[in-house]
């Protein structure tokens, strides 16, 4: 496996694991409070929808000219990556609340207890819809990452396998502890995903626009640590409070 392929698999695995942890919290809350069967039907329907999206868009993306593909994919990855990285830096600097799976689980559980639901052919519609929406929304971003990374490297299978491994690990851990995975270092994982997405996006986007990197693929070995160090530096800059004081 080449270095770029390892980066691809790692990025997809981390991104998918983070989203799966958040989806698991929703499904656990609805399943334990109302109906496991209905919640799992919702999960199944969402997974089928996401797989269909990958199946439909994957071939279309891989048939694009490589420079156009890299330009589009690079731009998308940078925009996505910067969103992940910005939120992770703000959380690490204490300017945004950390995502709390226990609190999210408590809120979802309370909402599930209070909600009215209808039974359709033995399926609790509330459990089905909430699980379906939760998995679909959390999964959409993963689908984009799987498609962009996979199509660009012509390794859709590897990207999909990495996503599958991440989901399996999170589901196994969820079943083992039978509770939301509150101890997962979500923000550190989001920080890493943001760095990887932005770095690969920068590399591919510039190539797609016609630039040539010194050292070709090896340039990524410089881009990734430089961006990570710069982002850590920005956490310290924000922790210092200069920006907030300046605005006050």
């Amino acid at each position, binding site marked *: 496996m080449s270095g770029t392929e390892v980066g691809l698999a790692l990025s997809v695995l981390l991104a998918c694991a983070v989203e799966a942890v958040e989806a698991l919290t929703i499904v656990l809350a609805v399943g334990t409070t109302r109906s496991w069967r209905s919640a799992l039907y919702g999960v199944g329907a969402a997974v089928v929808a996401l797989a269909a999206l990958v199946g439909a868009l994957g071939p279309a993306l891989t048939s694009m000219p490589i420079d156009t593909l890299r*330009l589009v994919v*690079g*731009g*998308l990855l*940078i*925009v*996505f990556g*910067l*969103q992940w*990285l*910005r939120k992770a*830096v*703000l959380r690490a*600097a204490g*300017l*945004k609340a950390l995502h709390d799976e226990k609190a999210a689980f408590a809120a979802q559980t309370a909402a599930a207890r209070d909600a009215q639901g209808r039974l359709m052919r033995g399926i609790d519609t509330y459990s089905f819809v909430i699980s379906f929406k939760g998995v679909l929304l959390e999964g*959409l*971003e993963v689908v984009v990452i799987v498609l962009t990374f996979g199509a660009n490297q012509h390794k859709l299978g590897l990207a999909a396998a990495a996503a599958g491994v991440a989901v399996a690990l999170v589901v196994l851990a969820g079943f083992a502890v039978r509770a939301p995975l509150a101890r997962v270092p979500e923000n550190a994982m989001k920080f890493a995903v943001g760095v990887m997405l*932005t770095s690969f996006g*920068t590399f591919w*986007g*510039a190539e*797609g*626009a*016609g*630039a*040539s*990197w*010194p050292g070709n693929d090896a*340039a990524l070995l410089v*881009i990734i640590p*430089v*961006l990570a160090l*710069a*982002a850590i530096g*920005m956490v310290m800059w*924000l922790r210092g409070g200069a*920006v*907030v004081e*300046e*605005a006050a």
Partner: protein
Amino acid sequence: MKPLRSAWEFVVGDDWQTALGVVLALGVTGAIADSTGAAWVVMPLAVLALLALSLRRAARRA
């Protein structure tokens, strides 16, 4: 209009200035790529600047 708005929010999020900056930086890279071998410099610098500016805007709102 709702699907378009959802797609916009999904791709661009709450920071359209950053998305616009990415598009402009890619455009500049493309425009100078034929005339200089150092066009690769544009994207890393743009990404670092866009992240810092985005964080400054978010921190001021916090």
